[in-house]
């Protein structure tokens, strides 16, 4: 579902509309452009680029959108996420929680309209999970960003404005 919403896969049937526009008819290039401008993705396995530092991973998102010279913004966001001392570290030098915070910063730096989060706490311990979710909810609220999250954790789901439960591929 998240893949379809992100424009990374095309549906075999049906439509996906975003602000009254049918994105299913978009070409690969147009979908890439749509994703760059509107979507931020947070993965369960973080997927930071291993040979880039925390700051460089965040900047990657800006540069993909042809926004240059915004290092200060990235640094501020990482500082806000409590990573001021880890900015120039490679992912292999960060803890799981720190890696996921960098991944969230990478998804948010571009100020997307929607954040798609795929089990963002799936690879974290409970303490890290809680602080991560706080961070995600606080920031999306503050920046007026929609958050679409897939989770198996009902306590996290309860914090969302709307819950769609899917079981065996069907909306319950």
């Amino acid at each position, binding site marked *: 579902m998240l893949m379809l919403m992100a424009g*990374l896969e095309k549906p075999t049937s049906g439509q996906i509309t975003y602000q009254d526009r049918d994105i299913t008819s978009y070409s690969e290039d147009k979908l890439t452009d749509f994703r760059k401008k509107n979507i931020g993705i947070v993965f369960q396995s973080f997927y930071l*680029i291993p040979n880039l530092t925390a700051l460089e991973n965040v900047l990657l998102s800006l540069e993909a959108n042809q926004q240059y010279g915004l290092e200060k913004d990235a640094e501020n966001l990482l500082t806000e996420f409590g990573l001021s001392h880890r900015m120039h570290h490679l992912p292999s030098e960060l803890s799981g929680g720190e890696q996921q915070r960098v991944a969230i910063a990478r998804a948010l730096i571009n100020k997307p309209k929607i954040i798609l989060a795929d089990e963002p706490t799936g690879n974290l311990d409970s303490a890290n999970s809680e602080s991560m979710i706080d961070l995600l909810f606080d920031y999306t609220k503050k920046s007026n960003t929609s958050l679409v999250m897939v989770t198996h954790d009902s306590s996290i789901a309860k914090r969302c404005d709307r819950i769609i439960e899917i079981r065996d591929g069907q909306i319950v």
Partner: protein
Amino acid sequence: MGRLFNIKQLKLINKYALRDFSRSYKKLWVVTSTLFVSLLLLSLTFSIKEALNSEIENNSKELLGGDIQVDSDIDPLPSAVLQKLNNLGKVSSTIEFATMLSKKGESPVFTELRAVDNNYPLYGEIETLPQGASQKIFSSSQKPAVLINESIQKLLKVGVGEDVVIMGQKFEVAGLVSSVPDLAESAVFGEFAIISMDSYEKFGLSSGGSFLDHKYRIKFSNLDKIQEQESIVNSIIAYDDRIKTRLPGQSGRSLNRVIDNFSNFLNLVSVSAMVIAGIGISNTLLSFINQSNTSIAVKKSIGFPSSFIQTMYFYEIILILIMTSVIAYLIGVFSPLMANEFLPAALGINLQPSFSLLGFLNIFFIGLLVVLIFSIPSLYSISEIKAASLFRNTFNPVSLNFSFKNIALLTILVLFLTAYFVLQTNQKLYTVLYFVSFFGTMLIFYGVSRLLMALIKRSYKFSNNSYRIAYRNIVAKKSLAPIMTISLGIGLTLLLTLSFVANNLKKEISDSIPSLAPDLFFVSIDKDVKADLESYIKKIDPGADIEFSPMASASFISINGTPIEEVVSQNNRSAWVVRGDRRISWSEKPKPDNPIIEGKWWEPGIEDELYISMDSRAAYDLGMKINDKIILNILGRDVTGTIMNFREVDYRDISINFAVIINKAFANKLPYEYVGTLKSELPSSEILAMVVEKFPNVSAIKIDRILKQVSEVLNKVFIAVTAISLIVIIVGLIVIVSAVLVQTTFRRYNNLIYKILGVDFPTILKAMTMEFALIYGTLILFALSVATMSSFLVVENALQLTWHFDFGLALWILVSTAVVSFILILLANRSIFSPKVYPLIRNE
């Protein structure tokens, strides 16, 4: 890479590529090392060739010995003509001929003797040991002196100040010639001596007969109007067609041809190495992309298009290409200084390094073409990596992208690379054939690997753990079979082919020819001496086999009315037959070892008609047909003759053979001399010593000495050629090792599972040995077949020798390559032999 980028994006690509390169350079060592080795070979070839050509061009006057050379062959120029030439500047006269140099107790030596006047040399200097020894040969107050080269010194065991005998006259050795400015091949490779013109005239050494060669070199007084003065020289000698001129630009032509041929061979070997390096680039790049699949997927999910990522990786490869080509070119630029150490000093050549931007761009461009050809299928595989995989958390390895568009692009690039090489060489047909065979062989080896995989899949599955593991590794998607078969197969085929050709040629020279060839070859024997010489030899050895043939000089003027220069190109294989003076013979009956293959022999006794019998191969090359009318200039007179037949002439046994034979009745009117051969049970050195003592004017070549010299030169050439072709194997081995290394993660994982399931180390080692043996066994079967076929074609058709298969040589090459390859593969695989179990349990 299909879309254009703006400046900001290009800057971003530059930034990302540099960052990625600086942090991942260790993974790209194969691309760097294989590209560097092949570019270095190419650069060395180009630089040394350029340096040699420029040395020849810059020293063209020294190499010729004057501003112009007049060659009047057997006869000297009349004094009136010489006077006219003297008016144009300084003239140096020389006479070259072959004669015997002897010393009591030593076998006489057949020597190229040059008689020079006081003006010699007009350009450059004769370098001697001791210095200034050349002045001694002109001194009239002392006894006659000669300068000899090092080869004569060794053969006659003669030192400076000792005497040698030339045509019965004693000469004191004044010194050793280390080099003469005008290139004398015999000074470098054979026996060469210099005396003064005064000695030549004073002692009547002019019995060289038709082997005398008069040369006049002129240094013009007025160097401003060289072309005008060249025209004057041509008009002065226009009275006789046989007198030719040579200009400085033509002086190093034969050397240039040798350089061109050898550098063309090196270029082809370099490009072969580079193409195999390309396979390594393709494989390394693909594995690099597969290792970076999550990073690529993340970049795509963020919004980077595939084209951006492809360009970034391509940019990294280009950076490597720039670095390696600059270093390779710089080493190449200075390589002529090193080459000077290996060139014979007698050549007097001093190569200088020279930098040219065009030279660098040439090497870079060839590298770029190869990199493009081999990186396109890998780079386009990036489009197969989907960002959606990040949600599924599974990544399938991508494979080379051979879309229709890519195949078309690759075909164009391969054709362009071939055309680029073909345009740079004089041997266009051979170069095209080489490329066609090379790419054809590559396809064959790819097919061989697929065949092996298919056969193994269909064959009986032995109940043996090692075999089962080996089987799975061979048929696996990431099998080593294709890359190992292509990379090693090509190099091995090249090495086997060259070794087979070299071995056949060496066998012919060391075994077949000596058993057939005569012991001595007499040149230019006066017809009045012939009978005495024959009876004298018969007295020494009654069982000696002696053969004499009459001989005169003639030159081709035209074929069917068309001047010979217009009919025969410089590159014609048989141009030597019709170029310049040719020795012809005559006979009433056809020689039994020269069978007629077309036409008929002539009726005996016809005196007024000139009938010609031609060597069939030369006639075919020159486009001659039976009944063609040929004008020959015989002793200054143009005579029209008719081609009556073609003979099959086998020059291999070094017996007396002539490309042109005429009817005896017509030739009876001509002045002539004899050439002869001798085969005897007695040592040829002893017979020669006795003959030269009795007949000082008789000259004879010792065939075993010539064969030894040819064999030595060929040995050196083939060692160099084989060593160079080994580079292709080395590059192939680097590619195989890289292929093994990029598979280590996958194999370590497999071995880990095997270990958990109870398979021990010896079983895994046996499996690896079986896998190697099956792949190597299959590839050598085809490498041996291709090498056997190609060497057979070269030996039987191009060299016209009888081809033999040398099992020992083949075995030696195949076993040594197998041992080296297997050891390298084991070393590259050493980390997978005892994998730790805990990473699997911890899901690392």
